[in-house]
Structure formats: C-alpha cells, structure tokens
C-alpha cells in the first residue's frame, strides 16, 4: 500500500485500498498509461486503474473477458530479438547508435537494473531508488556513471497517484543527454513500418520520456536533457538484423501532458462515489473470488463510464461497457455520434429524425438536419423500391 501513498492524502489511499479490496494492486506500465490517455474522460477506468484493480480478472469474472491474448510465437520472437540486440553488453545496439545518432561513443558501460542477484524480491521503491540514483549520477556527469541503463524503474504521477513503470527499455546517456531506446519486434520494410504499431510505440516511449523528465526535474536537473527523439530499434526488412529510427515524440508528449493534466483528480472522482464501493477479487480457499459477479457488476454501474469503440483495443472492460452502451450513439463511433448531432440515445435521434419527438432547445439544429436526412432517405428508398417492384 505504500506504493500508492506518495502524493496522496491518507484518506484517499485508504479509500483506494478499500476499492481494491484484499487483492494485490496491479502495476501500471507504459501501455496502460498510454491507453489511459485514449479515454481520459472515463471515470470508471480512472478509478479502477488508480486503485490498481486487476481489470482483466474482473472482466473475466463478470463474464465479459477481454481479448488481449498474446501469441506465444510473438512473445518468443520479441524476446529473442530483444536478447539479440542486448547481447554482449548491447554490442549491436551500440553499433546502431553510433551509426544512427552519429555519436562517437568510445566505450560503453551497460547496467541492467532489473534485478540484482539475490534481491529478486525488491520492492518497487527500492528499485526506483536505485534507478534514480544511477540516472542522477549520469545526469550530473559524474565519471564512470554509465552509458546504457537497461530496465530502469521509473515513476510517474497519474491522476494524483504515483505509479511505477516497468519499462523494458534502455536509457542511453551521452555527454549528459539521455535518449530513450525502445526495442520492438515489428519489421521496418524498406524504411516503412505499420503506422499503428509505430504510433503505439511512440506514445509508450513518450510515457518514459515524461517519467524520466519528471524524475530529473524533481532532482533539480534540466528535464530537457532527455531528448524528445526516441530511438526505435526494429528488425529490418524480413531479417533479424536490427535497424534504428529516430522518432520525434513531441506531439505524443503534448497529448500525454494535456490528458494526464485533464484527468479529473481522483479525490474528486471518489467524492461522488458510494463510500463502501469495492471491487474485491480476493479469492476464497478454492481460488474463486468471494464476492458474487452480480455484486461486482452493481459496483461497476455506480461509476460512470464513457464507452467508445476505441475501448475495444485499449481497455479490458470494453465488452462489458459495450453491452452497457447498447442503444447509445457513442457505441457507433465518434463520427457517427457527431453526425447524429451529438444526441446521446439512438432512439432519441430516430425520434427526432421522424419528427415524433419535440426537440429540446439545444437539439433544434440537430433535429432539423436529422429530419431532412430522414426525409431524403425515405424518399429515395421508396422510389427505389417502387422502381424495383
């Protein structure tokens, strides 16, 4: 519980602990934070994530399992590629950095910060402190402070809560400037990669840049010494050979900052929720959560959601929220909702279109457009049916 106590009042921490119940908190990673920015207006997600509720388990238990399975083949290939790039003190990586960044790196010190032998059970705080100490020494330009830092543990404040990030990245330091290096196993063919994957990698890297900058700033360093160009290392063409591209993540940083800033403070969200709200998934002796699924569904329904189809690719609760959002125009996608004049319910939009409902003042304009659209659609379909019959 100490892991969520930083920057939070005692009572908030206690409430979050209640919400989570007896289960262990789920740790954030760059993917979950990147996903958070995809739907910053959703209180349900913000509350669950801040409390560290295991949404995957929750969704499965209430019978709306998420489909974020990963193929063992993909995992194996990703691990093999990463291991290859990092082998022999990251020899291949150093070669690429020399070539791509044109840096005359004389010799390289490589620190793996993941675990120190015999200390596997280290807490996040201890690991964070160790990463921080090493990175700050490098920032201060101390001699022998290292060049490549693998798996540093970073911290970031999300909605007033400190969360720790387990990046599988390397921070690279040269003459007091840091670069974030991300290793991904999707291919870059003839200099081009799947734009969706590149943008996902870019937003995740931006999370790391932000976290490193925050850490340096807290220690009184210039945050800008962390470059906004991240180094993306991917297999080239159809081979295993790594290639590196620089990705400018300034845009992603701006989006992240804005959306993290906009996320309603968790205290405010908690204030309107029932005091006994709880998503306890703690298992009984048989390993089954003690609370009934219906009770958890009830609890979920007390927290406002803001479903959009995008949720399907980013949030574990998407199938539940989608079922709940049936009949809402938002479930049809942002642009459909806008074209329907921002009217919330499908039946309302149709009622206005058919002239069966009287529009409220703020619906007048939308209603006129919808009525026109409905008239045109009906006119053409009737004529077409007449012509065909």
């Amino acid at each position: 519980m100490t892991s969520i106590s930083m920057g939070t009042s005692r009572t908030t921490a206690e409430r979050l602990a209640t919400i989570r119940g007896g289960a262990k908190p789920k740790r954030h990673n760059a993917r979950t934070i990147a996903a958070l920015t995809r739907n910053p207006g959703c209180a349900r997600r913000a509350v669950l994530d801040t409390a560290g509720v295991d949404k995957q388990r929750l969704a499965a238990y209430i019978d709306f399992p998420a489909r974020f399975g990963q193929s063992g083949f993909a995992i194996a290939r990703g691990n093999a590629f990463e291991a290859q790039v990092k082998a022999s003190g990251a020899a291949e990586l150093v070669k690429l950095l020399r070539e791509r960044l044109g840096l005359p790196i004389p010799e390289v010190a490589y620190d793996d910060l993941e675990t120190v032998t015999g200390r596997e059970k280290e807490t996040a705080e201890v690991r964070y402190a160790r990463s921080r100490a090493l990175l700050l020494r490098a920032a201060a330009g101390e001699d022998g402070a290292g060049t490549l830092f693998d798996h540093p543990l970073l911290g970031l404040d999300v909605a007033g809560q400190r969360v720790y990030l387990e990046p599988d990245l390397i921070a690279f330091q040269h003459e007091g400037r840091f670069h974030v290096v991300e290793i991904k196993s999707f291919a870059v063919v003839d200099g081009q990669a799947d734009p969706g994957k590149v943008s996902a990698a870019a937003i995740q890297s931006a999370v790391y840049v932000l976290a490193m900058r925050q850490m340096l700033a807290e220690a009184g360093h210039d945050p800008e010494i962390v470059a906004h160009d991240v180094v993306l290392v991917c297999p080239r063409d159809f081979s295993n050979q790594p290639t590196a591209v620089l990705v400018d993540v300034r845009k992603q940083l701006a989006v992240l900052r804005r959306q993290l800033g906009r996320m309603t403070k968790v205290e405010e969200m908690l204030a309107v929720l029932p005091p006994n709200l709880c998503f306890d998934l703690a298992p009984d002796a048989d390993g089954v959560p003690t609370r009934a699924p219906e009770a958890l569904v009830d609890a979920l329904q007390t927290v406002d959601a803001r479903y959009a189809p995008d949720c399907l690719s980013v949030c574990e609760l998407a199938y539940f929220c989608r079922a709940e959002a049936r009949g809402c125009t938002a479930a049809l996608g942002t642009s459909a909702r806008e074209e329907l004049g921002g009217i919330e319910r499908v039946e309302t939009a149709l009622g206005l279109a058919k002239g069966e409902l009287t529009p409220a003042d703020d619906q007048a304009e939308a209603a006129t457009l919808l009525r026109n659209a409905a008239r045109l659609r009906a006119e053409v379909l009737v004529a077409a049916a007449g012509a065909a019959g």
Partner: protein
Amino acid sequence: MSTLTALARAEAVAVGQAQRITTVRHLHVADRPLVFIPLSMAGEANAPLAALVGTVPDDPRLLVVPQPRNRDQRFGFAAELAEVLLPYLDSFRGVTEAVAANRGKEVRYRYVDAPQVLVPNSAGIGFVRMFGRSTRFRRTDGDYPVQPSVPLLGQWLTFLADRAEHPGSGMLLAMTEALGLHWATGQSALEDAHLAALLAWIDPADGLSGADAAVVAEDPLRWPPAGPATDPTFDNEMLAPAMAAYQEAVGSGDEVRRSRARGVLEEAVRSQLGPTWELMWRGVSLLRELPVGSRVPGRWAEDRDVFSTFTLYVDGGGYPQPRRDGAVNAAQRLHRLERALQSYAVQRAYDDPLVMADHRLTGEAFVGEVTLADAHRIDDSGKRRVLRPRIQVTTGDVVLVTAGAVLHSPSRPGQKARVVFVTPDPASGRTDVVLELSGGLGRSLSPAPGSVPEVGDRLCYTTLSDSFMPPGEFPSREETPWTHGGPPKAYEEPVEPSVDDAREEWS
C-alpha cells in the same frame, strides 16, 4: 461518415439488421473471382503460415507452411500460390477487343475480362503487398535460387496491391470494405472490420438481432479471425503443439510419422480458415444480389485496360517494381489517385440517388420539379445570337448554390446549367431556382427534341461534375529538380534484381 450513413446506422440499431446505404452496387463482381485467405505467423514479418485459395466455393486449395521460419518452405509456399494464381491470371488472356486511342488515331487492344482477387479484410491486402515485396526480387540463380514463378508472382501481387489503392478499381478487394460500402450496421466501423460480425449484421441468423448475432460471431472459437493474424489462443493451444510435433517427426526421420504430423497441422489450420471461406462466398452472393450501378462497367473497363498493359510489360521481361517510387513517380501516382478518388465519388453519386442524397443534404445538389420552361430563349446580348433555354426548378431541398454557379444533371450529361436566380419561399419552405442551359441542345437555334427539360419533369442538379479532368504535368524523371531528390535512384526505378537483392536475409 455522412449524416445519412449515421442515420442508417441508427436505424440498423433500432431494426436489429444492417441497412442499405446505396440503391445499387458500386463495384464489379467477377463471374469467377479468386478468393484468397492468407494466414501469417504471429511475430514474424509477413511469414506465410497457410492460405485457402480458389475460384469455386466447394473446392478450396489449402496451402500450409509447417515451419514458417524456414526460408525454403516460404518460397515453396510462394511457388504453390503461383501455381494457383498465375494460371488464373492467364485464363483472362484470351479474347481481346479493340479500343480507340489517342483521339481515334490509334487502336489499342484490351482483354474482355480481367482477374478479380478477393481477400477478407484490408490486412489481407497488406499481406498481398508485403508478400509481393518479399518475392519479386528473388532470382532463379545464385545463392538462394527460387522457381521462376516466384518473382513473377511477386510482380503480380505487387500490381494487385497497387490497384487496391486505386479508388474504384475492382481487381483486389477486401470483402469487409466491399460490404461496408453498401450496408450500414448498428455497430462501429472498427467492429465492421471483423468479417463475421459484419455479415452477422447484414444477414443475421434466424431469430437473432444483428447485435446478438455479432456478439456470437466475435467468439474466436466459432468464427476464427479472418486473418492474416491468427487467434492467439489457437496459436498457443493448437498450432504450437502441432508445429512442435511436426518438427520432432521430421527429426525422427520417420516418413509415416512426418506425414501424420503434417496431417494434424493441416487440419488445425483448416479449422481456422474454413469458416472464413464460407463467409467470403456468402459475401460474394450478397453483393451479386445488388443491381449494378451504370458506371461500374466503365471502371471495370479501366481495370481491364491496366491489366492488359501490365501483361505486356511482364511479357516483355519488365523488371520488378521498385522498392519505393522516385519523386516524380510518387507525385504522378498521387495525382492519379486523387483524380480517381474524385471521379469515383462523382460517379457513385450520379449512379445512385441515395449517394446523391448526401450531397442534397449538404446543399451541393437538389432535386425538384420543372415548373417553368422557356426552351426557345435566344440570348442576343453578344456578337452572336445563341440558344440559351431557361427553366425554373422548384425544390424542397436545401439550396446553397448561388447565382452564377454552374450545375450539372446526372441524367443530362454534356449539358451545363448556370444558376440565374435563387428565390426561397419561407412560407412553403420551397425554393425556385432559375437555370440557363447550354450544351447538348443540337446545332440550330431551336433546341433538339428532348434536349430541354419540360414542365413536370423531375430532375437533379448538382455542383458535382463528371467531366474529364486533365492530367497534371510533371517533369521527366531525368529532370526531377534537386529539391525533389533529383533523378530517381536505383531502388526507385525498376531494375534487374541484383544478386544482393535476391540474397536478402530471411529469418
């Protein structure tokens, strides 16, 4: 998305079934399309795992790569695919027709039919493009010789993938997109990319609403993903053990064991491909049921033209398409695509009153009744007396055009209508538009019969024009200015693949 399409989506929710957003079919459906469903190995860069391919619903051919990381097996797959695809392409190289070219001064020949390849979704098109890229530079000599059909397959796949980017082309289509062009479901565009769910909305099983049918269709156990990505659970629970068993059987040197292990593997991938195969043909029948739009054959003729030209190029030993386009080629291509996009949009609106309705809603078109007509009006204000009939069209549509605008009517191509007055009547909500006509009236000072609309005719007028857009002008390749990278570099021009190209690493 247009308001009308959004409204159709809303109706689909209420009715529980997808709603039509066109009155006609806007693409060509071949008599004998080739359905191709590729699967790739997770984590690898476009490594084929299996495919189901064929032109007859009850006779799919299964191609399998038991060890997708094995280079020889990959090219073995390519050679097998070529065995199906190349004869299919060749089968259209029979009868030709003569077409006038260069303003009638020359005659060109084109095939009377052309191939059409159907894949389940846009990722399938991506697979075709990438597999074309990975095979077209291979050589039949040197370090990793392949069969001659492999680089040829690569050129054709690349050709097809390029055509798929061309708006209005029907040579390589994604079924989800072809269906989505004609139906609006009660779910989002993101969910429409799932072929089974999309078809569940269009043609739900008995007694189910579209929404419920789509939920069922999303279950990967009942409807495996339509590829190229496989279901991760299938990978982990069926494919991985089957592959490992195959690997072991190969190692054992026991041929019976090997072929049994291969059989298990084949059944496993077939279980993933079979359901999509059914869906693809269901999609084909649904599309065939729609009446075809009148400008579709014209666009298909263009496809036949391009197909005919490319066969000549390949027959002449043309080199594989470059890895990337040079500056001039890229600009020309972009320009071509933009023109095609625009003319495709206009043609669809001209062919289909429901598509035109989108433009009526936004005020770019209106439909009304001719309430006055002066067919013999002569304009003598200029040097020459000219025939300039005027008509008044009264419409209930929103009219946003202003005096001076030039309009066209889909039913009267070749005639221009200049807006003279626009007079809205707030009381009735109707608008009178006075139009002055020119063109398509015959040569004398009195109009040819039927060339001027008569009182009582119902007509559509729009700012959209289907007229020919002149192609842009570009410098020659050699004269590409240095600001655009200068003349194309080696990898930007078609050249003979080098030994290095062919040796390109695969792992």
